[in-house]
């Protein structure tokens, strides 16, 4: 049972992480370290989270996003969220995370 899949694409200093599945406490705790390692290894200046195929997200997803934001920031980089779909937009909106990064 794979509840969350990630695929990555790097274009120079831009790292795009495609998330597919459900973002909750269980699944985010599994992908946090993977993403952090990628940020560290590939001197990323811009982290893009593509959320088109995210089918569920609760506040653990917000915690995961905020955590990666702080990390990228500490390396002098920035972060955006792409393809925020209808299911997750309500949670994203009330989190106020749109004040920290661009969401499209």
């Amino acid at each position, binding site marked *: 049972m794979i509840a969350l899949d990630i695929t990555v694409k790097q274009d120079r200093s831009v790292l795009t992480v495609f998330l597919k599945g459900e973002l909750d406490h269980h699944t985010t705790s599994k992908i946090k370290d993977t993403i952090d390692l990628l940020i560290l290894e590939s001197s990323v200046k811009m982290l893009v989270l593509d959320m088109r195929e995210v089918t569920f997200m609760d*506040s653990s997803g917000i915690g995961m996003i905020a955590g990666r934001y702080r990390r990228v920031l500490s390396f002098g980089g920035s972060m955006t969220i792409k393809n925020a779909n209808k299911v997750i937009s309500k949670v994203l909106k009330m989190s106020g995370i749109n004040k920290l990064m661009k969401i499209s």
Partner: protein
Amino acid sequence: MQSINKMKIEFDSKSTNEAFARVVVAAFAAQLDPTLEELTDLKTAVSEAVTNAIIHGYEQRQGIIYMECVLYDSEIKVVVEDKGVGIEDIDKARIPAYTTKPELERSGLGFSIMESFTDGLEIESSKGKGTRITMRKKITNS
């Protein structure tokens, strides 16, 4: 209020059961023919309560989580309970972005989501004894 259907479930406080609890509640609530948005709201609120029981209530140690669902004509009631550490100060816990576990990257938004995604949130807690969360959600599409 006359109940249409009811169920009670208990399961291990394992993080894989967060997704399981969501499916269970969604499948039961489906009997009221909710809209997709009502269903998503309900699943999100339940996910928050179950995650809190695992992370805060049992502090990621072994425990049992109790969940109860009652269907009424146009409302579902969901109770999520743990026999864990309990909440020190409920008023503080409800403040948006307040969390006692920032080191686990908690956002402190769990209770805010439960509150705004349902039509009623009740928190009962007793230090050292556990926490009981009661949520009510109106289902309009029935």
